[in-house]
């Protein structure tokens, strides 16, 4: 996961360049104390002004190199981090919207948090990575400079550094463990806020805002406590770091001062060594912090990877070739011995359901449990696959087809189909395949959307707001219905499409629907008598099994349980 974010789309090369640039910068930084030492030694101690000028020039060149390499490196690293984050974000969105669906549902808030906070954590790891590489290079430069001044001192640094780093890594372990847990706790606060704001209208209806705010406060306090725990661990870690690096600095200073006192190195070299040792502290701590940076990025990467690896809800491999385009007149739907065990929200299984609907037919399906209708709808849309039996389209089992391709032929939107921010016409017009304005207009007429549109100042081009919330439920439902009709799909399966529509309009919609779907296959999962009355045939499922088939009027007279179900 991390690798993909950092090296996809030739980002790897840029990242390498960024690391090289930062290394140049850090090496130049390491050479500054050496230059200071040289100036003390060659100019200040000797009073040689020509030497002072020469060495100040060296200092200037050093700064120039440092500045340019950093400028280049920082831009390259930001490029990698930002585009890497973008790429992670898009793969999360792509996975969430994948036609194959997800076996385990995810909360919108959780998905959102993955696509923003976690994507950023993963991508920002670039910064961590390139700065650490540069810090490592700086440590090596410093060690080489020390070796040149004095072999024992260089060895002291070279041999002393690994144990220091190991000690720091060891100190960072508890921190790593904490980080992941605490980030989850913080994400929980965000998810709770999102959930409460999503249900704002419901909260408002019962005046539950104060209670909701209290609930959030509890979660927020828990997140605070978790953060403070992490920070406590972080504080101890910082303390350990300071102690180890500070002790190391004291040791180097003491050893080199002794050597200077005994005359084996010059005073300027002592200054350089002390300056280097002081400088080393930065890169040492930097490298040591690699652990916690990695921990954070890893925790996020794990969460992202878990999402990307979520098994699909339906398991067909993507089709390889282009399937035959739906031909006119085709689209015979046959449901054969379809069984779904414990469908979500239902008390009983859906067992051996069998019926068919041919082109030009409008078939009603009445279930005594809304969850059964939903399971049937989901099977037709390939949101789930049946445990046994199948949905056949023109003789081919739906669960052997690619879901996205299948949805070209079978359109089965969820009952609570959402609208999206944008205009009414933007919501209705399908993009693939494109349809004629006449087809759109026919869909608008059938779903009685014109009534809605006429009342709006910008007509069809009125904005509907986030999730269509500026419109009433009935208006949204009609637009969603028009959207489904506009696809002109060979097979259309609708679940209670008129629940929020008044009875007069519903009657018009029923007739419009029939007309709009002339020659095509349509299944209505509904208990509305108005819709059932326009169906050619009505299939009745009781307790998840076929119990009767007939016309609406026929069933009304012949079946008491049918009457009870639809005439509520």
């Amino acid at each position, binding site marked *: 996961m991390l690798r993909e974010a950092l090296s996809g789309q030739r980002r790897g090369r840029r990242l390498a360049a960024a690391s090289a640039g930062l290394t140049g910068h850090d090496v130049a930084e390491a050479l500054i104390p050496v230059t200071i030492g040289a100036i003390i030694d060659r100019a200040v101690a000797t009073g040689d002004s020509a030497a002072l000028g020469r060495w100040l020039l060296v200092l200037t060149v050093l700064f120039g190199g440092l500045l340019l390499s950093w400028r280049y490196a*920082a831009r390259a690293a930001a490029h990698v981090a930002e585009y890497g984050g*973008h790429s992670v974000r898009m793969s999360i969105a792509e996975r969430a919207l994948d036609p194959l669906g997800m076996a385990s549902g995810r909360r919108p808030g959780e998905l959102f948090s993955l696509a923003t906070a976690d994507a950023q954590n993963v991508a920002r790891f670039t910064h961590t990575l390139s700065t650490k590489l540069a810090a490592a290079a700086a440590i090596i430069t410093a060690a080489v400079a020390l070796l040149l001044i004095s072999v024992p001192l260089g060895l002291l640094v070279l041999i002393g550094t690994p144990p220091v780093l190991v000690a720091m890594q060891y100190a960072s372990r508890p921190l790593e463990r904490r980080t992941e847990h605490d980030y989850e706790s913080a994400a929980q606060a965000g998810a709770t806020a999102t959930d409460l704001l999503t249900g704002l209208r419901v909260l408002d209806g019962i005046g539950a805002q104060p*209670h909701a705010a209290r609930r959030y406060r509890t979660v927020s306090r828990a997140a605070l406590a978790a*953060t403070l725990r992490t920070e406590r661990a972080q504080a101890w870690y910082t303390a350990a770091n300071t102690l180890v690096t500070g002790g190391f*600095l004291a040791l180097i200073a003491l050893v080199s001062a002794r050597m200077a006192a005994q005359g084996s190195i010059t005073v300027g070299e002592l200054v350089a060594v002390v300056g280097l040792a002081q400088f080393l502290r930065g890169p040492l701590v930097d490298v040591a912090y690699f652990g916690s940076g990695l921990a954070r990025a890893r925790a996020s990467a794990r969460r992202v990877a878990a999402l990307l690896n979520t098994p699909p809800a339906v398991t067909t491999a993507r089709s390889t070739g282009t399937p035959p385009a739906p031909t006119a007149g085709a689209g015979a739907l046959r449901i054969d011995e379809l069984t779904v065990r414990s469908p979500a929200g239902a008390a009983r299984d859906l067992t051996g359901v069998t019926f068919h609907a041919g082109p030009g037919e409008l078939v009603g399906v009445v279930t005594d449990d809304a969850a059964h209708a939903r399971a049937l709808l989901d099977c037709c849309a390939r*949101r789930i696959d049946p445990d046994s039996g199948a949905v056949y389209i023109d003789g081919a089992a739906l669960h052997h087809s690619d879901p996205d391709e299948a949805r070209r032929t079978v359109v089965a939107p969820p009952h609570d189909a959402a609208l999206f921010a944008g205009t009414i016409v933007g919501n209705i017009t399908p993009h693939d395949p494109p349809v004629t304005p006449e087809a759109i207009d026919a869909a608008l007429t059938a779903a009685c959307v014109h009534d809605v549109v006429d009342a709006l100042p910008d007509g069809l081009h009125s904005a509907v707001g986030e999730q269509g919330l500026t419109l009433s439920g009935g208006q949204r439902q009609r637009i969603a219905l028009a959207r489904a009709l506009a696809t002109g799909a060979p097979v259309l399966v609708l679940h209670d499409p008129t629940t929020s529509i008044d009875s007069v309009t519903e009657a018009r919609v029923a007739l419009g629907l029939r007309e709009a779907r002339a020659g095509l296959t349509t299944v209505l999962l509904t208990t509305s008598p108005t819709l059932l009355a326009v169906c050619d045939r009505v299939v009745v499922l009781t307790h998840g099994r076929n119990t009767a088939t007939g016309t609406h009027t026929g069933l009304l007279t012949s079946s008491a349980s049918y009457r009870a179900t639809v005439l509520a």
Partner: protein
Amino acid sequence: MTPTDHGTAPLASPTDVLLPAADTAGTRRAALRLLRLNRGRALWAIVPLVANTLAGLATPLVLGRMVDEVVRHGTDALPTLHVLGAVLAGIAVLQALLGALSHYLVVHVGESMVADLREDVLDRALHLPSKEVERSGRGDLVARITGDVRVVTDAASNAVPIFVTAALGVVLTLVGLGTLDWRFAVAALLAAPIQLRALIWYLGRSKPVYRAERTVEGERAQRLLDALGAVDTVTAMRLGPRHLDAIADRSHAAVRYSLRATRLRTRFFGRLNLAELIGLAAVLALGFHLVREGAVTIGEATAAALFFHRLFDPIGALLSVFDELQEAGAGLARLVGVTLLPRTAVPADPPRPRDSSLALTEVSYSHREGVEVPSGVSLSVAPGERVALVGTTGAGKSTLAQLIAGGYEPMAGTVRIGGVEPREMGRAATRRTVALVTQEVHVFVGTLADDLRLASPGADDAALDRALRAVGADSWIDALPEGLDTLVGAGGHPLTAPQAQQLALARVLLLDPPVVVLDEATAEAGGAGARALEAATEAVLKGRTAVLVAHRLHQAATADRVVVMEEGRIVEEGGHRELLAAQGRYAGLWEAWTAHRPTPGHPTTAPPPPRTPESPPQSPQGPRSPRSPRSPRNPSPR
């Protein structure tokens, strides 16, 4: 800041209006208020912070001493050197302890402030008028409460400690340089004007870029939520590519702003490097001069150079966290902006409604300029009376329901509940009097019990159980794996729309208000589900004044009075039978409704036996006869 590349979006911009952000002064005031709340902790954090910085300053002084000892005493300096080495080690121990302590204390203050703030923001967001939230989109709010909170939190635990430590370090180092020789401090200050100019240059240019970046991120959040909140619709309608394009567009825009900010930052740092070079060269040249004059020792010149060299890091840190602070400032402004939205006044001593009657006088409301729905509606409902609002979609029934329940404020006319306007009562008191259930269902994440307790936090399990049974939810509750403790809501056990609606009704029972407004609350169910919901509704409405927006005309038939709305106006009003006899608009609706329901049990002309209300309708005129057609569009009787 409006991003320039708006037009390329395949979907229209989610919203035109975002919620406001606070101005600089407002943000500062809010930050100071939060700081004051945590004053005690903040003061305690300062002490170890200063001590730690002082300890850090001792290091170059000790190193300078070492140089001097070596220069002056050669091999004789060894015992002193050992002592100085031990002092350096002691400083390391001190710094470790003080550093950890100060870091924790500073972060504690910052994080506590952020927690206070985010709770404040959510609290305010929850109490915003629904109109306001829907206009600017919930995505914007969510982006603020997640993204901006995160930026501010990061600043609190990272940038603020760095800033405070570095600022102290810079000041004390300058003092340290001055103690060596005042001229060193002056030389070091040569860098200051360049740094200052660079900072001003940078802040002026980066601020708008950061603002724009945050705005684009808000838009990106809205697009993400739009798609991720309705995955099934997106996949069923094969809209995935379109939504991904829309998300990618905003995500790309955010990337571009972020990279623009990086370019500014690198130029800024270039200028800082120049300042460092000038300052360091000045200190070294001055040291050279002063040593030659004998004014300072080589050790002191060394210490001065090391002091200045040590300044690089804190100054870099100081100036580089400036933009993190600035970014956090922008986030903070957006958070504070939410808290500064005018709060609807909560009356200190709200007048109590004298009964559960409703009186609407010439009430009008307008969602859009020029379209008034409802328009001049007058209606009175007696305590205990049940009124059904019927009419075609878009007639203004839902808006009227919101107006009655105090969700919207009428733009003209008055709404009175028991003689009191909702505005006078304040929201909390209004909700104790009138509850509103809309067709929008939301099951909150958490256990079933948590969800119900939103209505009544004090309710015990038995009360919850009673409420669920009263609305007929026991049939499926008993089948739940963990009963009341079953996790529901997004990601939890899925509930069907009728089940979610039963839950909504159960919440009303727990809330127990004298007046209930149901807006198509039973619309979601068909068949058996609808019957169960109608029974549940009956349980909820029993003994209460009720206004129900009904598409299922059975509910209208059992109401005491039916009010028919058309294009924002009341066109008919009266009892079910009366209106049928009048052969007007309602008769038409009823005919359409019963056309496919012809059974002996449900005669098309006679409604089910009227309900006997707990307290009989007391409207002075009694059920009014249908008004003569007020609207010319009123269809002629069939």
